[in-house]
Structure formats: C-alpha cells, structure tokens
C-alpha cells in the first residue's frame, strides 16, 4: 500500500499547488472548520494562564540553551540512555536513518511493525523503505491510520487528517477495512479503528516511534498523545525503535514542566494530553526487551550553523502556527509539498531540503505575523521568512538571473528610491504610462505581466493627478507668497 510521499524535491511550486487546493471546496471547508475548532480551544486554555507570556519566554530560553549546547546534551543523552539499557544510533542523513531502522527491524525478525505517529519518519519516507525491505508498517495513530488507509498524505503536523471530514473518513474505513456496516458518529469510527488496531497491538513484535522530547539528564524519551495507541506501541512489542531529530533534546527533566504546559495548550487546546509517556531504557519484566534510539541530523546542523535561521529548530511541533495562518487555512497542508506545512514548514523545509528545492515556500506568507503571535517558543517566523527570501533572491539573481524581470524591476525601483529627482520623475512617468489602462471611471481593471496577478481579482484606482509632495510644494510656495 504505497503512496506518493510529499517530497519538496519533486513537488510543484507553492502558488501552483495552492491553486489546486483552492479549487477543492470540501477540503477548504474541512480545514477552516478544524482550525477554527482548535483555535477556539487553544484561546480558552491559553487565556487561563496569566503567565502565558512568561511561559513562552521560558520555553524559548530552554530551547535556545538546549540547541546552543546540543552536542554536549546529545552525548549526555546517549550515555544515560545506554546506561539504562537502550542503544543509541547516529544517522547523518535520511538515507542512513532509513538503513539503520530497516536493519534493526529486520534483525528483530518482524514482517510487520506498528508505528506511533512520527513526522520524522514521514520526513524521511521511512514506510516506503520498510516496504522495499518486505516489512509492512501499520500506522496506529487514528489520523495517520486514516491517511494510510486512504493512500493520502498528512496535511498537518499534529492533526495529519485534518483535511478530511468525518463522512470521508467513514467512506475510507468502509472500503479499506472491508466493513459492511459503520455508523456516522465519531465514536463509531473510533470503535472501528480500535477493533482493527487491537489485533495488531497483540501480535506485532516491533514498534517504531518518534519523540516529542529527549531528556539529556536522564536519557529518557517523552511522547504525548491523545489516544493511547502510542502507549500500546511503546509497551507491548518486544522491540521498540525510536527515531528523533537531534533538535528534540532538552537538558533537564525539569524542563518538561514548561514544555508540557506549552505543548498541549498550543497543539490541541488541552491543559494536558490524555497520554504522556516518559520512558528510560529497559525495565525487567515490563515493556520492550530491546530499545533503540536513532538520532538523526538530516541537515539540522546546517540550520544550526545559520545564526538567523537557527531559531527554526526551537520548534516543538505544536502546529499552532498552522491553525493560525490565513494562508494555510485557505490551502491546507498539501500545497506546501512537504510533511512540514504551514508557516513552520515554509521556514523548515527550505532549510532542511536545500533552497533550490523549495524556493517558493518562503514566499507562501503575507507576513501577517499570526504565527509568531501563537508560537509557544517565540520563533519569529516572519523574520526567518524574510531571511530565507533574501537567500532565494541571491540564488535566483546569480549570473544571467540578474536579468529576470522581477530582479530588473526591483533594481530599477531601488535606483528610483535612492534619489529625490528620480523619484519625482518616476511618479510623473507612472501617471503618463498608466493612461492607456485607465477606464472612464478612473480605474484599472487589467495589468500586464507579473502585475496581472493583482487584477485577476482586484481593480486599482488610477494615480491622482497630483502627488502629495506636489501639493505640499504648491502650498509652501503659496504661503511664501502671502508672507
């Protein structure tokens, strides 16, 4: 059951992909409804905390510190995890991470693995690699199961099936689970998934998980979830393989005090997640017999090396920026061509995937700042977007790229703004040049070239006959005349 993974290397540019999504009215209704519900819940539980801004600041500082000393904390994590019976593996990139996980799963002798939702495994297209090795991966997170059965793709980092309505989910379950009857209510759907998954939990001997946090001080891994299916994966199988980006490290156990207040409130609008699992290595007569942690770089150290892009790694994957983003709310996640959609995806994907593969993403924002406002660790996403746009422009204007129409227009405008007389002349020229486009009522309904994007849905009023500075000049002259 393979599906085409979201891959920024092959995905169409954002404006093109967005156009497709915008035509899917059902999808847009689903996304708007779901993000409205989550945002309302979030506002309620965030509003309960008079110290929310201090919490955000604490979260920011913890993440900033953790990443500034990432090397030391990761080695500390490794020591403490191994001392407790876990095995730590280091993966430089996606390819190495896939190889390690496939080897470990193969050594465990499993033809099937159960998985708890992990965006990191989506990032590296792990399921396809497992399938190629003859291993069937079963997603156990309800939303990921819906995605997998529907041969779909995740569209949100916390609520991957947010773009599906309950009726669409029922259709998928009926078809893919081979059911004859299935009710319409959420409880009916949950029951169907439970029956389907329970058999798997009791028989499959290997599990693969992601991680919300790695605790250096204790060597523990932390996962928060809503359904308890993750808890099943973490406790029932013989072998547990956890894969985590190296950015997930926290220095101290106590840091969870801040993070576990910020994350659920921001992610699902809950004070606390229903299931919070924290485990450390192996325990006699309880849980898995083998425990592996794969620590994956996959370009994260490159992001860390960029002082202005670095804050992207502070992300704790709550998805609040996605729910708040007016662009994401129109298009949903697939238009971003990456498992990381929305504002965080627009800054993370181009940095993880090398810019050439994701040049349109830094522009997929009106810079309204709603993302920064809700970010629990205060990532200034608009600032990083602008930083990345600057990098895109530098790439696109190399060599002959200097002659692309936008670059030329920008250069000319830059020259105009550097001189008062050129600016005055340009204003006069603009008034004359636009004349053929202006209708009798003084409006422009069609513009050529790049500017045509404006007039596809908007009119533009003609330039007034006198600029402000011409008016001010005339006024001064008159005043002097009177004096």
């Amino acid at each position, binding site marked *: 059951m393979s599906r085409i993974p979201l891959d920024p290397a092959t995905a169409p540019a*954002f*404006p093109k992909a*967005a156009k497709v999504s*915008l035509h899917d009215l059902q999808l847009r209704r689903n996304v708007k409804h779901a993000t409205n519900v989550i945002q309302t819940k979030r506002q309620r539980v965030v509003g309960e905390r008079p110290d929310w801004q201090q919490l955000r600041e604490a979260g920011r500082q913890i993440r900033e510190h953790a990443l500034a000393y990432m090397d030391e904390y990761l080695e500390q994590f490794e020591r403490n995890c191994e001392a407790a019976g876990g095995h730590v593996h280091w993966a430089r990139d996606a390819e190495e991470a896939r190889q390690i996980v496939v080897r470990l799963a193969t050594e465990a002798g499993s033809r099937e693995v159960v998985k708890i939702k992990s965006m990191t495994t989506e990032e590296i297209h792990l399921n396809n690699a497992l399938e190629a090795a003859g291993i069937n991966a079963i997603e156990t997170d309800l939303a990921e199961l819906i995605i997998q059965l529907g041969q779909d793709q995740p569209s949100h980092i916390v609520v991957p099936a947010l773009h599906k309505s309950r009726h669409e989910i029922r259709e998928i379950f009926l078809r893919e689970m081979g059911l004859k009857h299935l009710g319409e209510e959420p409880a009916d759907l949950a029951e169907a998934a439970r029956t389907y998954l329970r058999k798997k939990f009791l028989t499959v001997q290997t599990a693969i998980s992601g991680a919300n946090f790695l605790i250096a001080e204790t060597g523990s891994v932390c996962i928060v979830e809503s359904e308890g299916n993750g808890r099943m994966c973490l406790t029932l199988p013989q072998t547990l393989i956890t894969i985590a980006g190296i950015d997930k490290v926290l220095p101290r156990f106590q840091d969870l005090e801040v993070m576990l207040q910020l994350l659920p409130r921001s992610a699902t609008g809950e004070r606390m997640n229903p299931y919070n699992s924290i485990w450390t290595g192996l325990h006699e007569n309880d849980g898995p017999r083998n425990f592996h942690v794969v620590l994956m770089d996959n370009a994260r150290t490159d992001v860390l090396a960029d002082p202005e892009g670095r804050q992207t790694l502070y992300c704790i994957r709550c998805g609040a920026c996605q729910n708040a983003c*007016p*662009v994401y709310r*129109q*298009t949903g996640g697939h238009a971003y061509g990456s498992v990381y959609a929305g504002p965080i995806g627009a800054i993370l994907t181009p940095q993880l995937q090398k810019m050439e593969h994701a040049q349109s993403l*830094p*522009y*997929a*924002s*009106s*810079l*309204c*700042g*709603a993302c*920064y*406002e809700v970010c629990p660790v205060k990532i200034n996403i608009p*600032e990083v977007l*602008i930083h*990345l*746009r*600057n*990098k*895109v*422009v*530098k790439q696109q204007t190399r060599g002959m790229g200097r002659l692309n129409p936008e670059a030329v227009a*920008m250069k000319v*405008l*830059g020259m*105009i*703004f*550097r*001189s*008062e007389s050129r*600016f005055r002349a340009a*204003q006069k020229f*603009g008034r004359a040049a636009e004349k053929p486009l202006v209708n009798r009522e003084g*409006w422009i*309904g069609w513009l050529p070239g*790049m*500017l045509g*994007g*404006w007039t*596809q*849905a*908007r*009119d533009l*009023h003609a*330039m*007034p006959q*006198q*600029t*402000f*500075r*011409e*008016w*001010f*000049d005339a006024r001064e002259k008159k005043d002097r005349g009177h004096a």
Partner: protein
Amino acid sequence: MNFRRTALRVALFITCYNDTLFPETGKAAVRVLERLGHTVEFPSGQTCCGQMHWNTGYQAEALPLVRRFVEQFRDAEAVVVPSSSCVAMMRDHYPLMAGELHDEALKRDLNVLLPKVWEFSEFLTKKLGLEDVGASYPHKVTYHASCHGLRNLGLGDGPIQLLKSVRGIELIPIEGLEQCCGFGGTFAVKNADVSAAMLADKTKAVIDTGAEICTACDNSCLMHIEGGLHRQRTGVRTLHLAEILAGEER
C-alpha cells in the same frame, strides 16, 4: 475644545505609495496635525522606507534607504507616518539592517531617532494622549486592523477610541478583526490565488457590517480591500483613518 499644549514640529514621512497613490491621506494628516496646533514639515528628499525590497528579499536595495531615512529625518522633533506597516518596517528591521551594514554610527542615530517615529494614530493616542481630535464624520464605518499595526506596533484599540470620539459616526465592528486581508505586498502578486481567497473572506466580512466605509491605519491593506470591493461593484468605499479624523462639521 482646547488642544493647547506644547506645539511640536512634526516631520511627515508620507511614504512612497501614499505620496503617489493616496495624497488625500497626507493632506488629511496635515489638516489634523495643524488643527491640533502643531506645525508640519515635509523633508523633501524622503522616498521609501524600503519595506517592499526588504520583505521580498532584495536586501541590497533596501539597505541604502535606512541611511536615507536617517539623513532626512535626523533633526525632527517627531516623525509621523500614516502607514502602520512602514513604521513596523523601521522599528522591527532598521536596527537589524544597520547591523548588516556594520555601521555603528547609523545604529546610534537610529537609537535616537526611532523612539521619535510614530504611526499617525499612535502619535495622537500615545504621544499626545488624545482620543477626541474634534472630528465629525456622520457615516457608517467599520475598522480593519492591519496586521502590522495590530501585531508589530500593538496599536490595540487606540484607533477604535479615536473613531468612537468622532461626532456622528456609526462604528460597526467587523467579524474576524485579526484576520489578514491577504495583501502582504508582493504576496498579492506572487501568490495571487491565495491572496484573492483571503481577500474574498475579508470583503465578505466588510460587506456584512453594512458599513459605507472601511477604514484602517494602512492604505496598502485598504488599496487591496478597495480593489476587491470595487471589482465586486459593492459600492463600499475605503478611507484612511486620517481622512475620517480630518472630517469637520459643515
């Protein structure tokens, strides 16, 4: 009404697009400031704050405009700007840009100058401490909170307080006040489809208020909203806040 307090020499930074496309906003700002007893100067070498270049990624074109702004406005007692996004540009990015230029003197100049730079409505409410500027405008009006005014400048309900004090006005709140109209500078052209979808939500919210006029502290958003309202032949107009505050009883 007694507006007598220390008269200020206000330097008006009109901004490039207001100068060219919205001269009435500048005239209105002058009228309001002079009515309040202040004198208005217009440093004539001013052009653009650099926002479009900076936000689109053309850093090299934006950087010289920081020095230009400082040179033009260095001696001002107060700089008033009838555009919230341009003020946000200066406040949030100019210090960073001076860093890019490795220019310590420019940084020092900005430290002195930037606290004297005010968005038009915040100059009235925060610098002068006014809510009632003696305006009259007997129309149904709704207020759109531009993103940069709302989030970067923290204008809060300052503009709404100013509007509430206008005689004869009927102020109708809009649904989804904090939602972006979809302009975003070059975003409106580069991502025209998404921008238009966002605009459609915004124009619907404006129309649903039943107002005759949609106002804001930023003509760039208003140009966008106006473009949509006019295309749909709604008859609803847009007007900068300064033009409403300039209204006088006839």
